[in-house]
């Protein structure tokens, strides 16, 4: 396995569409729930332990060889908001394109064939990690980090937040991210043997509700 492949996959410039998604930050900024670095940090922390954990566990499970079709259904059940399900599938499809160009693999081709309109992004991420020769932990780290780096980058653009402050937020979250990834990997690795019910299902009600509000805006900067 190539550890450097993890850097390629986790790079914020990996062309898989993430730059156009704020992870709910655009709605939270407009609603006044994110106003600066402190509330961005609280927002990211909430994301990390809810959708971040679920995404990381899904990615770990996919990387560990669990059935991606079952994982995709588990992701649907853990994502009540149709706007977020749609965003996750669009991002999955965009990631699929980049992944197949970067690490051609039969498993990626099969997944693309199974989900022509895209599987949930963390599932594609886990299969991509496999194709890149990475493991469950690598996949979980990628998913976990994306769950907070997206909103942090978006808030730099939305509030003109000092980018050094936003980066400081991400750095402060790193120890929590490590612990969360351990949980996600343990759950993800258990899936091939025990089924998808062992996956965490942590939810952030305001992320789901906010995503529906955002989807109804006539004018927005970010896709989600």
């Amino acid at each position, binding site marked *: 396995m190539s550890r450097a492949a993890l850097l390629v996959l986790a790079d914020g*410039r990996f*062309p*898989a*569409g*993430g*730059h*156009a*998604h*704020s992870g709910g930050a655009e709605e939270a900024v407009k609603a006044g729930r994110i106003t600066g670095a402190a509330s961005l940090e609280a927002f990211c922390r909430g994301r990390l332990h809810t959708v971040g954990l679920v995404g990381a566990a899904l990615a770990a499970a996919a990387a560990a060889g669990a059935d991606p079709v079952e994982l995709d259904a588990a992701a649907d059940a853990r994502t009540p908001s149709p706007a977020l399900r749609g965003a996750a599938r*669009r991002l999955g*499809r*965009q*990631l*699929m*394109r*980049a992944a*197949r*160009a970067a690490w*051609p693999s039969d498993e990626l*081709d*099969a997944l*693309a*064939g199974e989900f*022509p*309109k895209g599987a949930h992004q963390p599932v594609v991420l886990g299969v991509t990690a496999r194709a890149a020769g990475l493991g469950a932990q690598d996949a979980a780290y990628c998913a976990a980090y994306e769950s907070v780096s997206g909103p942090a980058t*978006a808030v730099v*653009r*939305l509030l003109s937040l000092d980018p050094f402050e936003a980066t400081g937020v991400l750095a402060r979250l790193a120890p929590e991210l490590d612990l969360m990834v351990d949980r996600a990997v343990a759950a993800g690795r258990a899936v091939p043997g025990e089924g998808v019910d062992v996956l965490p299902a942590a939810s952030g009600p305001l992320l789901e509700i906010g995503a529906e509000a955002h989807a109804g805006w*006539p*004018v*927005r*900067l*970010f*896709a989600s």
Partner: protein
Amino acid sequence: MHLDHAHSAPSAVSADAQRPDGTRRALRIGLGGPVGSGKTATVAALCRALRDQFSLAVVTNDIYTREDAEFLLREAVLPPERIAAVETGACPHTAIRDDISANLEAVEDLEDEVGPLDLVLVESGGDNLTATFSKGLVDAQIFVIDVAGGDDIPRKGGPGVTTADLLVVNKTDLAPYVGSDLARMAADAKAQRAELPVVFQSLRSEAGVADVSAWVRARLAAWTA
């Protein structure tokens, strides 16, 4: 299922001239340029000039996602199912150059849903002089500037002015009012672009978008040859 086939084929990479089912995909032309230079008006005029002869679709990348798309819808230049808007996360140049995945999805979805298409126009959100389209997204690009933005823009150059396949200097009818020297702009553009073509146009004149549309027709002829 057709879509299954399309996306399971291993060669579905951005710049392939063929669709995965073996048919030729549509020619893709990008339109970029600064805010207010007349990109959307040019797209609308091109659609009117070409729609009776070719199967067209448009992808917009506005900063505020749907604004350009809605202008095109209001003007009814194409049926709504032929216009798609891509959200760009406040970075329109990223969506046309660095991470083109959302635009490629939009183009391919249009081909799947309303195709076969001859031509897809991809309009960038108004950005700056450095914004150019990736070759993975478009086959040719048009850079639209206008005389009111200052007659020194061609001299200043930048990737859009220097490398676009066609440079359009728009709103020539305003030149006398804003003190822009068209001859100077033409000379500067020639210096920056050597043999690459430049069109001066006013959409208010009788000729309108004729020169640009002739250039697009030539491109289409070469694409389908």
